[in-house]
């Protein structure tokens, strides 16, 4: 009985969401969200990427509960043990630390870096791009010139130089990646702004006496968000790989922190005899970047059907 009731209820929910004539703004918004979700769910690769990332998030969240060993506990008697089911699942490193536990804790660092960069870089780009696009004139020329200069710089080399100037560490690595990653977002935001700044509704708001600041923040920013979100999801894999590269070169997270790139670097000297030390963290980076790439591709297909068809 209750089951029937539930299916009926969910059916009506579905109908309510799929209606052609929404009766409120909230319904229209939820309905479009639901349709996007349906389209996204129909894409198996994107769902695959999405589930990996959900799992990663859970792993990071519950790291102390899942990890079989203390990621920092050294045990020199047990150093460089190969992967096995009854000792260390993924082997142990040169200080006898459990690689699996370190990978689990390392997921926190990876997510921390990715989300910080993915939050900051688009915001910087949004500020600069919308200001340039809306204000136009010399502001536009100067801001876009600066953007071009940063765009002309090779990103990894610039990030390297920045980190070496600021000093090694996670926060400085994040800062360096943000400093090199914002220009594409500024370009996107500017292009979006240019396409809407002469729209009738902007003119209407302007006639009502809204200031430039209000127009940009209340009426232009919301419309730039979706293209920025697509771009940032596609960029996340690149962010992970850049961050790991900095860690690998010893410029990101510092030991004994279980950052994946730094772990590869510490396994490098044992690669010929103890392959697992460097291989496992690399696999982790690969799986997570692949997941982000799949998710980004899927999101682009859903949110931006025009480009997805290509």
């Amino acid at each position: 009985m209750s089951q029937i009731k539930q299916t009926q209820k969910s059916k009506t929910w579905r109908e309510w969401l799929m209606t052609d004539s929404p009766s409120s703004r909230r319904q229209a918004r939820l309905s479009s969200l639901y349709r996007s979700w349906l389209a996204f769910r129909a894409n198996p690769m994107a769902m695959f990427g999405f589930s990996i990332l959900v799992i990663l998030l859970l792993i990071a969240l519950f790291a102390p509960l899942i990890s079989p060993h203390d990621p920092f506990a050294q045990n020199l008697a047990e150093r460089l043990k190969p992967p096995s089911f009854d000792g260390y699942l993924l082997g142990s490193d040169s200080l006898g630390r459990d690689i699996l536990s370190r990978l689990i804790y390392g997921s926190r660092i990876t997510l921390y870096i990715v989300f910080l960069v993915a939050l900051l870089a688009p915001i910087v780009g949004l500020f600069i791009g919308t200001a340039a696009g809306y204000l136009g004139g010399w502001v536009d020329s100067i801001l876009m010139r600066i953007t071009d200069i940063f765009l002309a710089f090779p990103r990894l080399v610039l990030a390297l130089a920045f980190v070496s100037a600021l000093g090694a560490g996670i926060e400085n690595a994040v800062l360096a990646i943000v400093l090199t990653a914002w220009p594409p977002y500024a370009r996107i935001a500017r292009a979006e702004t240019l396409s809407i700044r002469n729209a009738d509704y902007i003119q209407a708001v302007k006639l009502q006496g809204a200031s430039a600041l209000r127009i940009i923040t209340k009426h232009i920013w919301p419309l730039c968000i979706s293209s920025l979100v697509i771009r940032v999801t596609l960029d996340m894999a690149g962010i992970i790989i850049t961050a790991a590269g900095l860690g690998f070169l010893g410029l990101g997270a510092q030991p004994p922190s279980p950052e994946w790139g730094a772990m590869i670097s510490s396994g490098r000297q044992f690669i010929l005899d103890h392959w697992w030390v460097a291989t496992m963290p690399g696999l982790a980076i690969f799986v997570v970047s692949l997941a982000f790439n799949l998710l980004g591709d899927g999101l682009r297909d859903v949110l931006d059907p025009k480009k997805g068809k290509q």
Partner: protein
Amino acid sequence: MVTTQTTNNKNSKQSLPPWLLGISNTFFSILITMIGLLFITFLIGRVMPIDPVLSIVGESASQATYDAAYKELGLDKPILVQFFYFLRDVAHGDFGESLLTARPVFDDLLRVFPATLELATIGTIIGVVFGIPLGVIAAVKQGTWVDHLARFVALIGYSMPVFWIGLIGLLVFYGKLGWIGGPGRLDIYLVDLVPNVTGMILIDSLLAGDMDVFKNAISHIILPAGLLAYYSLAYISRMTRSFMLEQLDQEYITTARVKGLSESAVIWRHALGNVKVPLVTVIALSYAGLLEGSVLTETIFSWPGIGSYITTALLSADMNAVLGGTVVVGLVFVCLNIFSDLLYKYFDPRAK
């Protein structure tokens, strides 16, 4: 075709040909971009926590010596004046001396750059030779296994850290199978056997006619160049595919088919002919990307190029070397961008 030719001639009689005008415009923007690039590099050098004066006079110098050196370095001048001095030095090819090698950074850069160039060039050539056909076939056979393969190849390429797969490659092909030479450009007993002409060992050994060195150099370069090639292949095939899809939708393709042209002529001559122009830009960009991507690849393979020069300098706080390297990589990057812009204008009749 004939009409465009004549209008072009008319224009060039009246004033400069438009593409030359374009060059003067681009020249101006190059200048600004390069000055900006140098300014950023200069600022990075300024915020460095290392005191340049102390590294010259030493820890135990008296205050007077310190002040004298401080003045001599121009550090008492306003920052813009200092930047001007920096520009002047760079224009003279003077990046200061490297702490590590105790030689002028400029000479070091001249020495290491050919190694990077060799690696990136071979990588790009392989990437172009395989990437373009893969992209074309993926576009023509959209939705078939070739298309999926191309997508898969690109996806893997975008998701794999180059420093990791390089290590694995060394482990498998050098450590386990012994098919290739290990890190470095040559086996140690072959180093310096051929005279250094271009700095690129493959060319130098051919010039000297020493096939042993040539073969050995090939066995060393094949893995790093192959890796770089994979990344460039992933990018080039992806872009080729989307350009081709765009062209295959056009009406002139239908016209060509209706005329009874063979399918291969339609695809490889008509469609690819029009894709050539944007592809040049993509190839130049990927080439520039490889020069940059070599930073990590070279570290893994102990390749004595500009990438490992910069990283070694970084780790020993050799700031002159880092800044010099950054400037050079940046300049090459900008030049390639501009070069591809110019090629675009040259090849595309609409841009003329």
